[in-house]
């Protein structure tokens, strides 16, 4: 009896280790995460609109149907990204995700405070290479550091009423997301 309970205790401890390691390994093992889904639909380093979610088809689960969405799937290995997103009339936000769908930065139109959301996205190494005087002269340039080389920029524009969806989509169509080769 004591022997059996020792075996069970061992199984519980081992089971705990199995549980924790599978939870930690899940983001690496997942093949249907947001980035993998969008990799089939979007080019690299360009902003493209996503089709609106419907009952038949949704790119990702739990998408807000009141928003027009555009995605820039980025790869910073050949340079930094320059992003410029015009604001729609109602509400616009830009969210940055790592390769593993962690939202590391988000900004909305009011926080940006201008007619467009303009920022530079780079890796910490590329940021370190930006000449210091350039940093000062371009003080109004917002620089975001990406923790991963690849990831997603998701732009969302609200259509407060269904009839305003076309307006929101038009606003997002003006988004520019392009790579800027690093000056040597």
């Amino acid at each position, binding site marked *: 009896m004591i022997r059996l309970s020792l075996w069970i205790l061992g199984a519980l401890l081992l089971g705990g280790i199995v549980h924790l390691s599978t939870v*930690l390994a899940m983001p690496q093992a997942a093949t249907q995460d947001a980035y993998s889904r969008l990799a089939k639909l979007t080019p690299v380093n360009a902003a493209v609109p996503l089709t609106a979610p419907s009952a038949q088809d949704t790119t990702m689960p739990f998408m807000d149907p009141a928003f027009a969405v555009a995605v820039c799937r980025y790869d910073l290995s050949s340079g930094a990204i320059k992003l410029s997103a015009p604001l729609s009339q*109602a509400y616009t936000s830009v*969210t940055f995700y790592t390769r593993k*769908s962690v939202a590391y930065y*988000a900004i909305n139109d009011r926080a940006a405070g201008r007619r467009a959301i303009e920022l530079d996205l780079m890796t910490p190494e590329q940021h370190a290479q930006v000449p210091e005087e350039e940093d000062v002269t371009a003080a109004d340039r917002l620089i975001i550091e990406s*923790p991963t080389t690849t990831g997603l920029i998701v732009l969302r524009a609200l259509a407060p009423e269904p009839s305003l969806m076309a307006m929101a989509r038009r606003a997002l169509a003006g988004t520019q997301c392009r790579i800027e080769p690093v000056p040597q």
Partner: protein
Amino acid sequence: MRLFLGSCFTLILAAAIGLGATWVTLTRGVAFGAMTIGAWTAWPKSGSVDIDPYARATIARTGELPIGTGDGVAFYARTDDAGNALDGRCTFVVSGMTPAARYWTLTLYDAQGRLVANTTDRHGFTSAEILREAAGRFAISVGPRARPGNWLPSGGIEQFVLVWRLYDTPIGVASLTTKEGPMPAVSRKSCS
């Protein structure tokens, strides 16, 4: 022989316990730092780099992109205030006031996060299009059959999920208290 049988038993039991626990936590959407107000639960940390390993694993498995903390916060409801499951064959009323936010949206999904087909092509409301009563209060009926006023069709599915998203809001960024409310009440009216 006994040692061999014992270790086989232990290894099989360990695999069952470990994988079973992972399956249960990931399908139920377990995460730390939950903020519950009435029937509504939000995980504000899931929209930041402080996201916990369970939420990370869940979003990797489902493929969803959590709403960023600088953007807003999403509250999920799978039951009403009394704990009844949100059954599409019943009529529920969502009523009251919302916390401060520049915009909000309410959306109805099935349990997997897909929109639900219906004849009016309505999947939710935004704060701009809702019909309100005098004091800014509102009531939305969620059910299979058309109702006057704000009607959100549930398509008669077995289990639906309501998601309340607050955009440009101080909730969840500065504080984690339930005093921030009030979130709208959810109550079951009738079942067919």
